[in-house]
């Protein structure tokens, strides 16, 4: 204690002395230099605040959307039973050509960041349009089987030459090939490739069990999550109510199945679903 006190006294003495008695400080280490550092850029405080608030606003909106997604659909003022909704939607689509007036479904999906986007395919009880499948094979038995399964056109190596010459109209949605004919297809890859028709084992369009493959792809519609939503065309306006409802139910099942197949730590939430037409209003439905 006494030591500290005496030190304090000394200090007082030093400072009370006139300046000329103070010795200049001696440096024991030499000077060092550092590279130039620029002072941080000063943006205006207003802009920074606005940015922060925008972020907060987005977070709040996201949270609100999540809460809303958990509410049952019939709590929403935009909710309707499907038959009633269809009455309005068909009226909104009056006098439009049938291929233009289509009903589509849009579902919000809430998943954690980093979870792979949902994807899958729906098999509709009533398909929107006929899918045209072409089957190429050297084996006549396979070709007959393909025709029985529902392929619209079958062909062998002569057909490939026709494609190369441009004499065949390529109005197919899919071309399936068997393994024996695959090497011959390389010369038409430049024609089929850009149209997305080129058969390849990777895409699952080269197989020896043609009949099964056709059965899997006929009447299916692929879907994929984009921007937190799954949207796909479900029916045409000239379908009757029962057909539309059946198609919607099969879509719902397919989406739930693909959710159960996707790996995620937290459960993926299916949000509100909107039924709409090309020109009509969006109406919330039970999904």
């Amino acid at each position, binding site marked *: 204690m006494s030591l500290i006190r005496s030190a304090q006294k000394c200090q007082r003495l030093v400072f009370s002395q006139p300046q000329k008695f103070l010795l200049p400080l001696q440096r024991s280490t030499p000077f060092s230099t550092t590279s130039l550092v620029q002072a941080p850029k000063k943006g205006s405080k207003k802009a920074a605040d606005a940015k922060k608030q925008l972020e907060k606003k987005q977070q709040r909106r996201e949270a609100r959307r999540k809460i809303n997604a958990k509410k049952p659909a019939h*709590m929403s*003022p*935009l909710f309707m039973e499907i038959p009633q909704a269809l*009455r*309005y939607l*068909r*009226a*909104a689509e*009056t*006098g*439009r050509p049938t291929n233009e007036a289509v009903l589509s479904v849009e579902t919000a999906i809430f998943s954690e960041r980093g979870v792979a986007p949902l994807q899958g395919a729906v098999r509709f009880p009533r398909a929107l349009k006929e899918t045209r499948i072409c089957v190429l094979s050297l084996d006549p038995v396979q070709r007959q089987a393909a025709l029985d399964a529902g392929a619209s056109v079958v062909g062998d190596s002569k057909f490939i030459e026709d494609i190369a010459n441009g004499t065949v109209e390529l109005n197919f949605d899919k071309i399936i090939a068997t393994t024996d004919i695959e090497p011959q297809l390389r010369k038409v890859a430049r024609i089929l490739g850009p149209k997305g028709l080129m058969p390849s084992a990777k895409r699952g369009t080269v197989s020896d069990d043609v009949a099964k493959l056709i059965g899997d792809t006929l009447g299916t519609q692929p879907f994929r999550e984009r921007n937190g939503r799954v949207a796909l065309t479900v029916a045409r306006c000239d379908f009757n109510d029962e057909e539309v409802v059946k198609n919607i139910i099969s879509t719902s099942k397919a989406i739930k199945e693909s959710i159960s197949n996707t790996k995620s730590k937290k459960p993926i939430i299916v949000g509100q679903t909107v039924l709409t037409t090309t020109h009509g*209003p*969006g109406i919330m439905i039970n999904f």
Partner: protein
Amino acid sequence: MSAAGTITGQARVLKQFSYLNKIANFPNSAYKLPQVKRLELVFKQHNAYGHMGARKFWLENLKTINFHNPKVEIDVKRILCETKDEQLKCPSVLKVYFEDGKTQQIDCKNKRSGAIMEELVKITEAEKVDDADIPVLTIDSFVEAQQQTKN
């Protein structure tokens, strides 16, 4: 208690309601057409030379007619005319096909959509739909329905 402020995103909801109500009940067009089998409307793609009435009739009145007569087939054909001569020649016509096989035509050129509607009602002897059968969506009715389900 007034219903105002009880719904989030009210502006969006009101917009939707007014749109749907316009489909269900466009002024002077909620009629039942029991004698009609099919309606066919033919007009030009461009508005000029008296074809605007037919277009408005399609976009406004026909929606309501479809809403109350789901079984009546409605076809709309719009013709693209490139030269002026073609445009002047192109007819603007509403063809009415009756259940008993007769047909009648309404010339829509240089007429307003309301006038076309009146003529259609006169020709087909249409019956006005009861007010009770026309659904009207309002926020008040929605709030009431919600409270009833709660009780």
